């Protein structure tokens, strides 16, 4: 977690571009954010402030070890007031960004879904609350399969 976290933070900030409020209402899809394939690419798209690590973002139902990387359950709860959106990023996937959820008022800032992981990696939960960005990280190991397919 510590090593390379500077670069990671920059990457997270870069990804923040998709979280502009006007994206939520329309059926838009932020290609630039989903297309970034590396830290370097992501950094080029810089914009927005640096996110702050927060203990108020909690992972639930997210295993330490995934028996199969094709389906990794991820549950994220944000206890930060005025949470507007929650994003799921996988550090070592070819494209880091997996999903973004906009949370309107009245919807609990807590959800669970399932993502693919190519290898053991950090999962980041990135939260936008009251215009500011926060994140939490969880290391998930992906094990080998069985009898060689």
């Amino acid at each position, binding site marked *: 977690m510590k090593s390379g976290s500077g670069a990671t933070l920059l990457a997270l900030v870069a990804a923040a571009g998709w979280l502009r409020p006007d994206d939520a209402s329309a059926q838009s899809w932020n290609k630039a954010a989903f297309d970034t394939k590396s830290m370097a690419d992501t950094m080029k798209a810089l914009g927005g402030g640096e996110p702050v690590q927060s203990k108020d973002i909690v992972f639930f139902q997210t295993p330490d070890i995934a028996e199969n990387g094709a389906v990794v359950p991820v549950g994220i709860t944000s206890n930060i007031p005025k949470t507007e959106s929650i994003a799921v990023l996988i550090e070592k996937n070819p494209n880091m960004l997996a999903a973004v959820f906009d949370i309107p008022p009245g919807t609990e800032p807590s959800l669970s879904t399932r993502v693919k992981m190519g290898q053991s990696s950090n999962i980041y939960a990135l939260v936008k609350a009251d215009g500011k960005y926060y994140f939490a990280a969880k290391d998930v190991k992906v*094990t*080998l399969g*069985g*009898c*060689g*397919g």
Partner: protein
Amino acid sequence: MRAPMTAGISLFSALVAAVLVGCATAPSDERISADASAMIKTSFKARGQAGLDRLEQDDAQRLCSQAAGKTPPKDVAERIEKQNLATIKYPADGKLLGDWKNGEKIAQEGRGKQYSDDPKGPVGGNCYACHQLAPQELAYGTIGPSLYRFGKLRGYTVETQRYAYGKIFNSEAFAACSTMPRFGHNGILSEQQIKDVTALLMDPASPVNQ
């Protein structure tokens, strides 16, 4: 009163009849085995590199199937072990240890001989499926014993090298009806591959012996 009595008697006679019929017609164990062999022949189709000839059992396979997961009777076990011991071919150059790094790759490789595998593709020993070897690999199976520190515990002697090579070549030479494949005897691994896996077990520098 009458009705239940009648019912009771007829139920009783039905049971007797059933038992008698059962005794008269229940096929013998040999008959069932023969039926099973016949059924297997009509229930599979050749695919890829796996032809129907693979359903033909050799002596050891037939006797071990009869033993039904248990150790066969002592005389049968001795016969199987003797036959299989005679098949072991030690390397002509006398060198039993290859490269443990290749051995580790072979131990990790699960592909080979399945109808879904490329016949030209890699064939591995898949040792980790059943055995613990190098402690760095946590995803190991437990069908076979742990082989962690195999050489260190037994001593790096030529005798142990020969045992390890021979066991990989033909496991049934040492334990009739072992669950371990006869890698050399059945042509799964080449002589060089068996040397490499032997090195994984017996080379003092191998991670297995750290």
